[in-house]
């Protein structure tokens, strides 16, 4: 939870991550026809994402960005929207990567 940064501060970092994330989920047919254009803040659960699909998303995001979510971030809340996943990825890559 502490790993989620204030979004406004890191706006430039977030845009490419969010785009890659959206493309990744589209490739994996998560909410097909919806994910391509949905608002980044939209609740993916309300849009019909299912629990088992979420595990696939977790694995795909870790592989795509070369990060490993600590268990406390492996929750429904972290994977609620493109924006929240992006925040988590940005924060993890900053911790782990060369920055």
């Amino acid at each position, binding site marked *: 939870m502490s790993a989620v940064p204030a979004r406004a501060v890191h706006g430039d970092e977030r845009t490419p991550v969010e785009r890659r994330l959206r493309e990744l989920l589209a490739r994996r047919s998560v909410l097909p026809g919806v994910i391509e254009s949905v608002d980044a803040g939209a609740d993916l659960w*309300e849009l019909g994402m299912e629990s088992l699909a979420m595990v*696939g998303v977790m694995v795909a995001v870790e592989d795509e960005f070369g990060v490993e979510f600590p*268990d406390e*971030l*492996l*929750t429904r809340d972290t994977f609620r929207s493109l924006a929240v996943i992006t925040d988590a990825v940005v924060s993890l890559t900053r911790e782990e990567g060369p920055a």
Partner: protein
Amino acid sequence: MTEAICRELASGVLAEHAAEVDRDARFPKEALAALRSHGLLSAAAPAGQGGLGADVPALARMAARLARGCGSTAMIWAMHQVQLACLLASDAGPELGAAVNRIVRDQLLVASATSEAGVGGALRRSACAVERDDPSPAARPDAGEPASTARLDKHATTVSYGLEADALLVSARRGPDSPPGDQVAVLLDAADASLETLGGWNPLGMRGTCSPALRIRAAFADWRILPVPFGDLVARVMTPLSHVLWSGVWYGLAAEAADRAAAHARGRAGTGSPPSGALAEMRWRLSAVEAQLAEAARAAQAVLTGAAEPTVAFTLLVNSLKLAASQVAVDVALAALRVCGMAGYSEDGPHSVARLVRDLLSAPLMIGNERLVAINAELALVARDR
């Protein structure tokens, strides 16, 4: 204190009616009345609200105690505590809050209608939806009973004690256009709902839970829709607490079977042959489940209070408890049956384990273990230490 009462009731009124409840597949009304008279139906509610304030580890131990007298009664009690915890965890507005308070104060019995025909046994998918005649229910200026603006019509495949309950917690899609996974839970008064039994109830075990298929139709006011999304409620309260309290029941049934096997072996101690090694095996198997149960109960308590989040590792932990407890309890009961021989196979007598075995055979089916194995296999791909 509370556990002592559970033990006393189990060996008293619960055990007294258990065989008849089982034989006739009827609701254990005497046992439920006794639980009510000791405030046990509101065990999970905070003391300040009129409950007993029992935490999850205490609830699990109570479930195990009750199961030794009557598995059906213990399972009804356990399921009711889960529904109560769901209601208490919902950030309720004034009207829903008052309804929940009344449930706690009057110890009303709450059943769950989450199963549904056509969704393949998946808790997290609904076919039926909350429907409205008027898509934008405006605030009504007239005082008095709020109008029924919403309705639902659900074919639930298994509603334990549904016809005996005072209230039902029913899952449904949020609206007619919502995807199957976007669900809400609705608290219905049984008096306001039309319940139609579809088919009979004549199962192998847990016969007193009276869990037929029901068609549920109701019109209701909007405040009866729990504000918390059903998926969050399932992850935080319903699934962990179900697995922990059901496992408590199964542990109690298996421990009772092991005790009966030991009693049977004692009665034959004069014959000169040493007691069966199965008696030792039952003990280590039970110890393992007991420890796993206590650990999962502590974790579930932390998630219930918000001190911890329902993470992947937590979900794996409670699912693993369910898988292990449901299988080990059956193994222990079957080992007890082998030790007791024909005395155990008989439905009558002090060394009968027949009903215990039959009750326990439901354990791997309640949220089917095959489904749970498939889920845990996926979760294992991202599992890390908690």
